[in-house]
C-alpha cells in the first residue's frame, strides 16, 4: 500500500476490485442518460427556434448532429418531416439513437451493474424506462413535444441527482463520471459544429433579427442562454457564442470544463486507486487536448476551421473511449504475473 491509503479508504485492497464489466456498464449508463438529456434539449429547441430558410422547423439539423442521415433514410423518406423525425428519435426502437432504445440500453447497463448501484437509482431508472417503453406517438401529440422533452430532461436530472446523492464514491462512481463528461464534451462539439454551419452557410452578414434568434437557440440547446447573457450583455457575435460554449470555465456544458473534469477523474483513478499504469496514456491525450483549446482564441479556431477542429476533438474523444476500454476492460486480460499489485 502507498501512503495515500491512510487518506483514501478506497485504497483498501478489498475495495479495489471493481469488475471490468461493472466499470464499462457504469460508464455507458452515464453516457446514455447524458445523451438522452441532450437529445431532449435538441428536440425541444429545434421545434421552437430552429428554422429552415423558408421558416419551417429545421429538423434535418438533428440528423446531422447525430450523423444519423443514412440510418434515417433507410426508414423514412427525405426530406425529414416532423412526424417522422419524432418517431425516429423517440419511439423507434430499431433506431439505436432513439430515446426508447437509449433508455433501454441505460437500463440494461444499470441491470448489469445492479449489484453496485443504489436501490433508489435502480427504481428511478426502472420506472423511467418502463414509461419510455409505453410511450406512443399519440401520447406525444396529445401532450406536446415540449411537455415530453421537459419530462425527459427532468427524468434525466432526477437520475443524476439520485446518483449524486446515493452512489458510493469509489471507482464505479469515477467511471460513471468519466462517461458523463466524455459524453457532454462530445455533444457540445456536435452542437457547435452543425449549428455554426447551418447558420453561416457562406459567411453571411451577421446581426439581423433572425440571426439573433438563431444564435439564441444554439445557446438554449445547451442551457447556456442566460449564463451567456449575464457574461455578454451587449454583444452577441458568433465568436462570442462559440468561445463561450468551448472555453468558458464556469459553464457546466462547456468543452473546457468537461475536459478538465475528465482529466481530474483520470487523475483520481491513477492516484487513489493505484491505476497509474492504465491511466498514463489517457492522461497524456487529455492534457494535449486541453492544450489545443487553451492555446487558441475562439476567433483563431474559427478562422483556422471550426469544423475541422470539432472533428478533431470528436476523434480524440473516440480514441480516448477506445483507450479506456483497452486499459480497463481488455478483451484479453493480462496474465496474473503482469498485474501483481505492489504489496
Amino acid at each position: 500500500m502507498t501512503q495515500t491509503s491512510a487518506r483514501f479508504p478506497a485504497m483498501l485492497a478489498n475495495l479495489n476490485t471493481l469488475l471490468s464489466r461493472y466499470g464499462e456498464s457504469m460508464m455507458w449508463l452515464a453516457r446514455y442518460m447524458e445523451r438522452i438529456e441532450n437529445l431532449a434539449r435538441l428536440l425541444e429547441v429545434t421545434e421552437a427556434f430552429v428554422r429552415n430558410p423558408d421558416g419551417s422547423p429545421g429538423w434535418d439539423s438533428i440528423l446531422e448532429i447525430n450523423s444519423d442521415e443514412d440510418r434515417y433514410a433507410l426508414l423514412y423518406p427525405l426530406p425529414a418531416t416532423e412526424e417522422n423525425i419524432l418517431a425516429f428519435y423517440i419511439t423507434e426502437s430499431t433506431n439505436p439513437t432513439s430515446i426508447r432504445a437509449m433508455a433501454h440500453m441505460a437500463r440494461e447497463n444499470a441491470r448489469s451493474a445492479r449489484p453496485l448501484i443504489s436501490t433508489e437509482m435502480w427504481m428511478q431508472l426502472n420506472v423511467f424506462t418502463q414509461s419510455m417503453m409505453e410511450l406512443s406517438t399519440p401520447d406525444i401529440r396529445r401532450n406536446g413535444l415540449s411537455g415530453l422533452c421537459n419530462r425527459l430532461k427532468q427524468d434525466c436530472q432526477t437520475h443524476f441527482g439520485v446518483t449524486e446523492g446515493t452512489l458510493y464514491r469509489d471507482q464505479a462512481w469515477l467511471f460513471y463520471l468519466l462517461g458523463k463528461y466524455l459524453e457532454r464534451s462530445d455533444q457540445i462539439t456536435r452542437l457547435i459544429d452543425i449549428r455554426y454551419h447551418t447558420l453561416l452557410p457562406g459567411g453571411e452578414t451577421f446581426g439581423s433579427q433572425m440571426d439573433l434568434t438563431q444564435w439564441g437557440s444554439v445557446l438554449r440547446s445547451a442551457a447556456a442562454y442566460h449564463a451567456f447573457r449575464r457574461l455578454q450583455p451587449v454583444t452577441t457575435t458568433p465568436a462570442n457564442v462559440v468561445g463561450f460554449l468551448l472555453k468558458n470555465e464556469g459553464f457546466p456544458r462547456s468543452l473546457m470544463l468537461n475536459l478538465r473534469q475528465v482529466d481530474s477523474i483520470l487523475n483520481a483513478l491513477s492516484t487513489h486507486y493505484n491505476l497509474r499504469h492504465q491511466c498514463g496514456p489517457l492522461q497524456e491525450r487529455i492534457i494535449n487536448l486541453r492544450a489545443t483549446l487553451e492555446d487558441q482564441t475562439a476567433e483563431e479556431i474559427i478562422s483556422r476551421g471550426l469544423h475541422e477542429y470539432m472533428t478533431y476533438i470528436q476523434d480524440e474523444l473516440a480514441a480516448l473511449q477506445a483507450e479506456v476500454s483497452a486499459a480497463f476492460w481488455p478483451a484479453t486480460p493480462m496474465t496474473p504475473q503482469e498485474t501483481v499489485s505492489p504489496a
Partner: protein
Amino acid sequence: MNRPVLQSPSPAPTYPAAMSPAPASPASSAPLKAAAGMFAAYDTPDFFCELMHRTDGLPPSLQTVRDRLAGFDLAELRHRTSTAEAQLYRLGITFTVYSDREAIDRILPFDMIPRVLTASEWDHIDRGVQQRVKALNLFLRDIYHERHVLRDGIIPASLVLNNPNYCEAMVGVRVPGDVYVHINGTDLIRDRSGRFMVLEDNARTPSGVSYVIENRHMMLRLMPDLASGMPLRSVEEYGLKLHQTLCEVAPEGVTDPQVVLFSPGIYNSAYFEHVFLAREMGVPLVEGKDLIVENHRVYMRTVAGLRPVHSIYRRLNDEYLDPLAFNPDSMLGVPGLVEAYRRGNVTLANALGTGVADDKAVYAYMPRLIRYYLGEDPILDSVQTHICAEQEGLAYTLANMNKLVIKPVGESGGYGLLIGSQATQTELDEFRAKLLEDPSNYISQPIIDLSVSPTLCPSGVEARHVDLRPFALTGKNTWVLPGGLSRVALRKGSLVVNSSQGGGSKDTWVMAR
C-alpha cells in the same frame, strides 16, 4: 436538551401560513371491528389451518395476530396489497417466466396475511433441518469416497451410481470441511393433523431466500400496525451468515478469501435474487466472462487487472459451469473451473454432484440414511414414496393413479407432475403411457391434504394451501434462517405452490416466544 436551531439564510425567509408544513395528522387507527371481522366467512373444515386451528388450542401469539387481522377491513387490505405489488414492480423484484418464445417479467404475488410459526414449531423444524443437512453431507462424502452405504446395502448402488446427477469428476475429491451442501432448501408441508413432513430436499441451487427477506421488508413497511410489538425472529442476518459460510469453506491457507456470486447473467429468471444476495454479502456478482482460469487458479477481471477468487457461490447448474468438463456448448461457464476446483484452489458452493442427494428417488431412502449415518430417528417425517423404477412401486402406482401425486424425478419447479385426484381420465391415460415408457423416471406419493392459511382472494379472505422452504447454511456449523419461504397456491383448491405455476408468497413469522 438544547440544540442549535437549523440555519437559514438571513433574513430568514417567511412563508405564508398556508405553506408551512401542517402538523402530521394522528395516525388513522381504525377502531377494531368485531372480532370475526374479515374472517366472518372463513372456514376450513377439511384442512389444518396455520392461523386458526391448533389441536391444543390457539397459542397466545397466534391469537394476537388473529385478533389484529380481524380488525382490518377488506378494502384496506386490498389497497395495501396493490401498493405492495406496485412497489415490487418498481423495485424490479421480479422473476422471469418463459413460455414458448416469450419472456415476461412478473412479480411474485405477495399476500399480506402472514404465515405464523410458534417458537416450539420452529424449534422442531430447526432441529429437523439440521439433522437432514448433516445426513445429506455425510451421504455425499461417502458416495464420492468409500461408498460404505452402498456396500452395506442401505440404498441400491445403481440408484446412486447410475443417477444422472452422480458426478464422476467428484470421485476422490476432498472438499473443505467435508461440506457439499452449503446452502440447502428443505421443502416442508403439513398434513391434516398439522404434522410437518419433508416433501423434498433442494441441495443444488435452491432459490427463494431473497423473497423471505424482501417480504419481511414489505410487511414492515405496509403492515406496521400488524407487526408492531410482535416478538418476530429477524431474517436480516442471512447475507452476513452466507458470506461467513463461504469464507469458512475457502481453500485452506487463504486468510482473506475473495468471495463472488456466480450468476448466469441478467437473462436468468432468478437474476434479481442473485443481485440481492451479492449486495447483501457485499461481494461482486460475476458472470462467466468475468472469470478466467490461469494455472488452475481462478481470477476475476477487474479494472486493475486479474484478482484471485477463492470461494464461488454459484447459481448455475453443474452442467453449465465449465465447457471443458461438462457441456461443451455452454457459453455461460468458465473453461478450466472444474479442474481448478478439483485441485482445491477454489471452493464451489454448493459442491459439484450434490444433485444425487436431492433426487426424488433417493429421497425415499432419506429416513434410512439418517438412521445409518447419525444413529438417530428422523426428526422430520417424510412422505411415503413409491419408486416406479422398482416393480412393486410401479405396480402400486399404476393401480392407484387417481390417489397419488406422480412426479418425474429429474424435474423441479412443479413441472411435469400429475395430481391423480384432480386429473381427467384423458390426462390419466396420457400420463400412464408416459409412465410405462420410462418408469424409472417417476416416483409417486399419496396426495397430502396440505395445510392452509388465510389468504386475500378476489372474493374475500379464503383458505389456500401453503408449504414452507426453510434455508440452511453450512460452513463450520449449520444455521437455519428463522422461517423461510412460505409459498401459497393462489388458485382455489390447488396444491401446486410453485411460482412458475401461479403461486404467490407470504411473509413467514417465527415467534421468539
